[in-house]
């Protein structure tokens, strides 16, 4: 064996034992981390397991008993939730409400954020501060006047009305985040494209938007989850009309009407969680980066 090979072997051994020592000393850390994850996951696991059990067992025994024989799993509650209670229709309604209520505010906010970040006009800073200030107006405060306006215009119970409402409510945060992100883009970039004779239209759609994918993705997640999960706005502007009711309204009606028989809802609740979870997992990478840009660069 050559000396080089011996040295190499020693080194490997040393790094292996070092790694082992580190792993051992980090043992408690891993235990704590995994324990936190387990605690946070426990409630959702309870729901998931329950939703696959027969309703009568969910009502009488704990969900963990499902793991001891006799194993009793069924799709019964999913079948019931999807067929009897108009859940399929409200799933589609939720999509019809959420997609435009995500696209419209983010686009409008992007236009405004671009002007706030890269155009000069009198009162720009003051106006932006007011927009940020509107972040904290409680939603509840706007319900009565907007409801009266919607009634006068015949917008109550329509998709258009709820799109407009979510746009108004989502704008302050969207403008705030995007303005911070757009403002952090390098200045030379704009100077060079404008020198090349590009219009603001071109700069916006072919430079600013593509560069801001992280911020846009994080906003899409936030706004989509907020609209998809919203109960209050839908409850008020859509009234009780089942034809346009989103999942949250349908499920909450079931909670109230079923009373003691709420177990059927475990399946319904899980169905309502699926899409936002999918959106989150598919955009998580962008999401973390977008937040980073928004909060750290300030």
């Amino acid at each position, binding site marked *: 064996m050559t000396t080089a090979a011996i040295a190499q072997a020693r080194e490997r051994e040393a790094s292996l034992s070092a790694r082992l020592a580190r792993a051992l000393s980090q043992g408690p850390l891993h235990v704590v981390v995994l324990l936190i994850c387990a605690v946070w996951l426990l409630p959702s696991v309870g729901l998931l397991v329950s939703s696959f059990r027969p309703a009568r067992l969910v009502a009488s025994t704990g969900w963990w008993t499902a793991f001891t024989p006799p194993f009793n799993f069924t799709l019964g509650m999913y079948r019931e939730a999807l067929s009897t209670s108009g859940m399929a229709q409200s799933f589609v309604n939720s999509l019809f409400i959420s997609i435009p209520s995500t696209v419209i505010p983010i686009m409008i906010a992007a236009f405004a954020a671009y002007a706030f970040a890269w155009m000069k006009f009198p009162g720009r800073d003051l106006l932006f501060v007011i927009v940020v200030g509107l972040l904290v107006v409680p939603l509840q405060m706007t319900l009565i006047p907007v409801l009266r306006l919607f009634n006068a215009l015949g917008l109550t119970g329509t998709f258009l009305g709820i799109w407009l409402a979510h746009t108004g409510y989502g704008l302050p945060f969207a*403008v705030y985040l995007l303005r911070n992100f757009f403002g952090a883009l390098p200045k030379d970039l704009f100077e060079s494209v404008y020198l090349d004779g590009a219009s603001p239209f071109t700069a916006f759609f072919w430079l600013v938007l593509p560069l801001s994918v992280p911020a846009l993705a994080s906003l899409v997640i936030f706004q989509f989850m907020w609209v998809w999960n919203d109960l209050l706005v839908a409850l008020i502007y859509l009234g009780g009309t089942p034809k346009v009711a989103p999942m949250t309204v349908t499920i909450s009606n079931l909670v109230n009407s079923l009373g003691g028989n709420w177990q059927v809802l475990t399946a319904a609740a899980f169905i309502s969680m699926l899409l936002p979870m999918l959106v989150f997992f598919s955009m998580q990478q962008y999401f973390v980066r977008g937040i980073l840009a928004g909060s750290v660069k300030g």
Partner: protein
Amino acid sequence: MANTLLMALIVVLGVPAVMAGYVGLVEWLLGFLPERHRPGVRPWLWIGPAVLFLVVFLVYPALNTAGISLFNADSTRFVGLANYAYVFTAQDMLISFKNNILWLVLFTLLTVTFGLIIAVLFDRVRYEAAAKALIFLPMAISFVAAGVIWKLMYDFKPAGLPQMGTVNAILTTTIPGFQPQAWLFNPSTNNPGLIAVGVWMWTGFCMVILSAGLKGIPTEILEAARVDGANEWQVFWRIILPMLSSTITVVATTMIINALKAFDIIYVMTNGNYGTEVIANRMYKEMFNFHQFGRASAIAVILLLAIIPIMLKNIQDFRRQEALR
């Protein structure tokens, strides 16, 4: 079915087209203006839609509500400050103020603390992304679904019977002699119980933002401190915490506003019964159950007034950051 298809087309294609079309139209119209006037007019057209929406949905309603709060139930007679007098004396309202303060303190403290601890701990393991996703998961769950989840958690059967609520089952099996609790009905446990649901849902938000801030601390600084013999405990208190202070302020502010606006969890789980009423839920009841528009508006105004000091602080911070830009 045809309607559904048409709607789907509008939703997926029509809406984005209208949005992009607006800017196209603006730039086309600007083309008719003399060159030197364009930079003066353009910004107003770009921020126009946003300003219009904000005025219609936030500014005008806020002012309007302030006006309605001075009138009687159906806004036909001026009553001065009578609604405010009611709000500050009614028994239900006093309970909600007390509960909102409890929410404000407990919810903010716990979400920010847990968010910080989790961000710092998870930063040291290799499966950080997956672990963080699990903590963030509840953010993707609607309050309605969360209500169902936590009904399963808090379920109560009298002592002696097999417990089917997760919390009672764990406590009765691990602690000998533990009496099962009716968590949501018992006035001493129901408010903390509801706040726990809020903490479970919002800690992920705090964690994501704090973790992003943590990654922004240059590693050289941390390494330098460690080389100089600082232990992890000192690194956390003397370096990480001070350097994260502005991020912590942002997160804490957001959580305080959330606590003041708390509505959904209470609405779904107890609807304010058994002494769990909060301001926002009270307001909803005054408006839609009792049709007391004046009182409901007065409650909304008070909610806004409570938030204004926080808003001023935020604007101050923003100004300071702008000065540094």
